[in-house]
């Protein structure tokens, strides 16, 4: 069994207690300032400057500076030139931290550095259940989880785009029937739709204003998003520009087509709903049994990460469990193209 080093334990505890007291003092100061602000705000002219002085913004700016520094170094390396382009499809996430495609890589590197730093602090004081394998496990876990989150978000975005596209085409069709231009029609549609889709439509409008043709503007949209529906739209528009014909008729037929497609998608989702619920529950079953074992058996968690053999076994089990979810999710996507 492992013996706890009591002297180091006491030093660690004192550091934690001091840091908590420091944070509490800071919080009380902020609360008092906030109360005064409420009392006297009615008698004072509002601040004109837009600079945010809050604690949250300061922390965010520090993190941002780290990300910018890492991506500045990575930009000069030749190694990440191809890997950078993979993250182009995630640029729709218009975030404060993620502005370029290389920031996605630098965020991952920053997370890994933070884990290594924390683990090295634990190493200095030799905390009771520290092990090198657990650090490796955390690094692999964070890289996998960030990857899964990005893919999930992209899938959610594509679904949302497909849903909203029908309403966009409806508004375009209505404004065309009134007698407006196609750029005006897209402009009106951009104002009414979801903020995520709004970005894309405004990009199209800016492309059209800068002199790019309609077919090429929609083709660029397809390269950004890559869904079946937009490929259909862009190819039809490009054909129209060559063969000639009324846009309004084609948009009317398009509206019917999308309507049919979305109805079909909904019915498929309703059919798959019970299966999805049951099989996700079956996937979580090992976790439920594991928590039961953790509660009933003492020192199980320490024993699991004590030797290298046990930690490798735990990692393999986790990877095996994740494989189940990946296989099931691939089976559920019936309407996926390619």
């Amino acid at each position, binding site marked *: 069994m492992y013996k706890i080093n009591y002297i180091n334990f006491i030093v660690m505890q004192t550091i934690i207690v001091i840091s908590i007291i420091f944070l509490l003092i800071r919080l009380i100061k902020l609360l008092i300032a906030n109360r005064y602000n409420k009392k006297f705000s009615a008698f004072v002219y509002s601040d004109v400057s837009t600079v945010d002085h809050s604690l949250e913004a300061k922390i965010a700016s520090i993190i941002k500076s780290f990300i910018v520094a890492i991506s500045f170094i990575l930009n000069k390396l030749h190694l990440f030139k191809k890997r950078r382009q993979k993250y182009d499809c995630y640029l729709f996430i218009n975030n404060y931290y993620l502005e370029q495609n290389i920031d996605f890589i630098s965020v991952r590197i920053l997370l890994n550095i933070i884990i290594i730093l924390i683990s090295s602090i634990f190493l200095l004081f030799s905390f009771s259940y520290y092990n090198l394998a657990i650090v490796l496990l955390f690094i692999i876990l964070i890289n996998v989880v960030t990857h899964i989150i990005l893919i999930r978000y992209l899938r959610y975005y594509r679904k949302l785009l497909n849903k909203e596209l029908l309403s966009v085409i409806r508004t375009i069709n209505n404004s065309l029937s009134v007698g407006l231009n196609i750029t005006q029609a897209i402009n009106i549609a951009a104002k009414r739709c979801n903020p995520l889709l709004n970005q894309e439509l405004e990009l199209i409008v800016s492309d059209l204003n800068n002199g790019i043709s309609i077919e090429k503007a929609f083709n660029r949209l397809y390269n950004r998003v890559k869904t079946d529906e937009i490929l259909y739209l862009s190819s039809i528009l*490009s054909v129209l520009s060559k063969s000639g014909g009324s846009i309004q008729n084609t948009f009317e037929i398009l509206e019917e087509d999308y309507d049919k497609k979305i109805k079909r998608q909904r019915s498929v989702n309703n059919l798959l709903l019970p299966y999805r619920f049951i099989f996700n529950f079956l996937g979580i079953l090992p976790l439920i049994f594991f928590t039961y074992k953790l509660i009933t058996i003492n020192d199980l968690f320490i024993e699991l990460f004590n030797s290298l053999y046990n930690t490798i076994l735990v990692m393999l089990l986790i990877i095996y469990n994740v494989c189940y979810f990946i296989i*099931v999710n691939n*089976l559920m996507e019936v309407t996926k193209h390619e």
Partner: protein
Amino acid sequence: MNNRVFSDRHLNKINQKLLLLGSNDNRALPYLTLKTVLIFIPCVAAMFVSIYGLILAPFIFIFLYFYTDYIVIYREIRKRKIKLEKDGVLFFKVLYFNYINNRNLKVALKITTNNINNDLSKEFKKALDETNLGKSLYDALNDLEKRIPSNNINAIITNINEAILLGNDSEELLKKQIYYLELNEINFQDKMISKIPIKVAIAFIFIILPILLVILSLKI
């Protein structure tokens, strides 16, 4: 196609199947020779492993000789058929739009093939490239039917061919055929949905049950 080992009938049969996979040349002979040479390796290995290998080797040879055809050719043809029918919905819809506005099938085919990058549009591109060398569109489309495994798409191509010969209006025919293709895809999706519970039950037995057994046997 004179060969001392394989008969002409056998070679022709495999050539037709390989054409459905999208190949251009006669590749039946190299395929068959490579297959027979590669199959000998496990048979010889079986003889060295045990004494019973001598008895097992001919059975292994016969089994692999027919099973490789299934894996390499027949299963791939089925996959290609499903993929081409999925591509066909988009391709023929765009062709239909083009045909309404343009009223000229050859020009419509040219424009659609230039704008869509599918497996199906590549096949149509091949047929249109053959017309530049001197073939008529009717013959080129007739040869295209040999390269496509699905009957639904071949029916549309025959419709287009008849329209070229007789000069009738193929607008409604295209509309009807696109509807059939969509219906076919919906049926395929329903088939896949009905298979899901059995597939995932197998995944549960082979993945989650072993994990549960390991967790339940945890002791100190």
